[in-house]
């Protein structure tokens, strides 16, 4: 039996495009090179060409650089049609509590459930469980020094993909998200003034 006809060797961009098309999760550049057999330069040129071809303003499919890899996804502008076709609604937005837990894991993690609850001031176990089930939070190890070696939690690649980040370094430093005025207001309300009393009022 004769096999399928093979034409001329496809262009590098075609190979990368084909591999990206069948992946539901981001593919690292090294894995792309391994699958396609392309050199680093060929890979860079192929990806540069695909970025232009799959730019948001040029196609219903976009090439995203997320979670330290590359991922072909539908253009959000077309999401309505996709959701109607798949007969499913967009996932329910996360609650404020869920965002706080993810912020803890992103900026303070890896950390335990108890540490998350301590930072937030309320028990966060239910939120953590929900985020693990949604794949946004994962266990990345265990705290061996603590009783019972509780699991350490961190954010997942799915979290990075969902937030459009390539890595944790893409997020702004947490200190830059709070103004000095806000911090000063907290201190003013809680810490009594530590200014030295007037010298004239000091006992002799």
């Amino acid at each position, binding site marked *: 039996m004769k096999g399928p006809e093979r034409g001329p060797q496809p262009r590098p961009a075609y190979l990368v495009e084909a591999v990206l098309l069948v992946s539901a999760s981001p593919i690292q550049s090294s894995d792309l090179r391994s699958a396609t057999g392309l050199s680093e330069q060929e890979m860079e040129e192929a990806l540069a060409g695909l970025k232009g071809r799959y730019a948001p303003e040029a196609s219903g499919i976009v090439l995203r650089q997320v979670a330290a890899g590359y991922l072909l996804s539908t253009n959000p502008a077309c999401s309505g049609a996709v959701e109607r076709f798949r007969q499913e609604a967009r996932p*329910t937005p996360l*609650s404020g509590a869920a965002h706080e837990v993810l912020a803890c894991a992103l900026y303070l993690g890896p950390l335990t459930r*108890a540490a998350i609850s301590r930072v*937030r001031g309320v028990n966060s176990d*239910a939120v953590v469980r*929900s985020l693990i089930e949604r794949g946004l939070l994962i266990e990345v190890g265990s705290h061996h020094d603590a009783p019972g070696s509780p699991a350490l939690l961190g954010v997942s690649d799915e979290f990075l993909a969902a937030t459009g980040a390539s890595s944790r370094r893409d997020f702004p430093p947490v200190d830059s998200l709070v103004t000095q005025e806000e911090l000063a207001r907290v201190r003013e309300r809680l810490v009594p003034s530590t200014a030295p009393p007037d010298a004239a009022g000091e006992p002799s």
Partner: protein
Amino acid sequence: MTAEPLGRALSDFTVELDVYSGPYEWLLVLILKEELEIFEVPLRELVESYLLARQPDAANGLERDTDFAGSAAALILLKSRTLSPEIDADAENLEDEPLSPQELTERLTEYLKIRRAAEHLRECFASNAGHYPSAHTLPPRQGALVVEPDRLALAARQAFSRHIEPPVRHLGPITVTLQQLAGIIRKALAGGPISYESLTGDMDRMNRAVAFAAALSLAQEGSLTLIQAEPLGPLILEPS
């Protein structure tokens, strides 16, 4: 906290909130199963939604109002308990010593940063919503799976950590033994066959449950025969 099961009067009442959109009854279920944080649910908006959807002239209008008032009151109680400091001495994470102003400031500062970071994340999620990746999923390759022990241990911990001990505070102390109930059954059977209903008619739930277990035990040892003509029909205890 427990809540009385709702009637079906509110089955057609749906709510539209930021944190949830759908049937009201499901909202209650999600809250009681702790899949939705009660303090994320704006109760005022919930009540306003009901007032807009209220049907005072409906045949079951009073029943709907009663069901909603009862469930809303339960939600308020649950929310207040969740937000109030824990007073149970056995509760975990109870801090005996009050925080100094400096420690409190540090904690609030840290929380403020996390709060701002959470707001930033909300924007990130919103601006990246609507991306759908390829629906193609790779089938697992037989024989090519490598399981690292560390990852297996992690997976096991993850799986078992989801088990939650069921609350048993609502259960009172068990004050009756299987032997005592077996004695009562033997005495009743001296007068001939007797139905389980009439045997346990004046017993409480606990005694009924233990009586059933005692009847099964006696049937197993051959002291009596259990007869039930049809599924869920009357259960008759007959001396062997």
